[in-house]
């Protein structure tokens, strides 16, 4: 068994999980959920860190640093925006 096989397994399981998890979300949550999921997709930052840190090639390093910056915007901004949205949402409820 090689790495790709494991990755495939992981992919399949995650996809299934993703489908199972998001089930009948109320309309009011569509935007925050989208935004929250978007923040998670900023996980690329981890990949970027790996590449920026390798020092393999100059280009890769610069690209990685750029990726880190962009992904950081996504992550930090994403979580904060989502939180603000949800805070607002809660206030409206009560």
């Amino acid at each position, binding site marked *: 068994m090689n790495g790709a096989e494991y990755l495939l397994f*992981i*992919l399949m399981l*995650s996809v*299934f*999980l*993703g489908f199972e*998890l*998001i089930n*009948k979300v*109320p*309309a*009011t*949550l*569509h*935007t*925050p*959920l*989208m*935004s*929250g*999921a*978007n*923040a*998670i*997709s900023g996980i*690329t*930052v*981890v*990949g*970027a*860190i*790996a*590449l920026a*840190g390798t020092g393999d090639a100059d*280009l*890769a390093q610069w*690209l*990685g*640093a*750029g*990726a*880190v*910056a*962009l*992904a*950081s*915007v*996504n*992550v*930090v*901004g*994403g*979580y*904060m*925006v989502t*939180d*603000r*949205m949800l805070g*607002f949402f*809660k206030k409206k409820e009560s």
Partner: protein
Amino acid sequence: MDLSIITSLGYVVASGLFIFGLKMLGSPATARKGNMVSAVGMLVAIVVALLDQGIVEYQFILGGMIVGGAVGAIAARAVAMTSMPEMVALFNGLGGAASLLVGWAALSPDANTFTLITIVLSILIGGVTLTGSLIAYGKLSETLGSGAVMFKGQQLVNSLIILGVFGSAIMFCLEPTDPTWLYVVIGLSLVFGVMAVIPIGGADMPVVISLLNSYSGLAACAAGFAINNNVLIVAGSLVGASGIILTQIMCKAMNRSLSNVLFSGFASVSNETTEIEGEIKPINAEDAYYILEAATNVAIIPGYGMAVAQAQHVVKELANLLEANGAEVNFGIHPVAGRMPGHMNVLLAEADVPYDQLLEMDEINPRMESVDVAIVIGANDVVNPAAREVESSPIYGMPVINVTDARTVFVLKRSMASGFAGIENPLFYKENTRMLFGDAKETISALVRELGG
């Protein structure tokens, strides 16, 4: 080995937190906590990644993070509540850009074909996400016009771009050393992102953003394959899958199909004159649920069929659930609905519908334009637009309840049979009408189950 075990465990934990976070985000009570949980997951993943790297070349990492984090934080705090959606679009675009860069950076001369494919996917999806999100941002913030942009030959151009993307991607995999193909792929994917989003109107942007969000997840996933990183794959594919589902849900709530949203622009250019007579569009309770769930103003128009089905109690239950969900609910009572004067009153009083929710025809008709969903329960003649539209109709001139003015109309009946007056009802063929076939009581019970669950 020691460090590697910590890394592995850290990534597992981070993925678990993402899963929990997403699950919690799906329910109003826990959403905010869910966001925190997934943020913690992200923190864990980043710390682990940093540890894993040792401190080599930390300046690049730290620099990027500080700059990016600061920008993100400032933007997130400054943005007005009303422009959150475009902010999300922008962030999403940056996420796409990051994936593009990671894919690019992962390119090394000794990459095998599998890795190359994943690299090209990462770049491609990342690129489309980037420019697509930027266009969406522009449309939402009205920096660009929010209308659908269309031009002659659009379809042809798009087909060419798609062909070009495929071609160059294949060439790149075959000749990874030639940077030209790489640049072509990058360029074309950026162009394609623009082309895909411009023909879509501003009102549909939330769906587009959700879809692009799903793409950015897929891009991260592809990047994960490219650099062989589990946590990217898990998080990316989670976002990819849940994003697709969410997109689907949003489409249903708008009573549109995804392809209708994505290609409506294209379609309307090519055949502008296809005004067909109308067709019957049946819908099931689950899809109806998504539309009702998103509605804030619902009108219920009962008729003889509600009486036959003895559905009054479940109708009341439905009204309660809709109100609990924040919608305004009114009943529109046509004077001749049913089979005896006051038929609907008897039944609705039995089900304890408050008198002030019962509106006469003359009261409900002017409000109909602001109604999101009009639910016609076993009524037929009293909602027949032929009374207004078809001069030859025997009921022409009779005032009816104008449900066609509502955004969406649900008609609950068992068949296409006509009502007491025995005449065809053009309502059933209208663009915004959906037929929920079946006994009214059963149909509404199904809706109640969907809404309650």
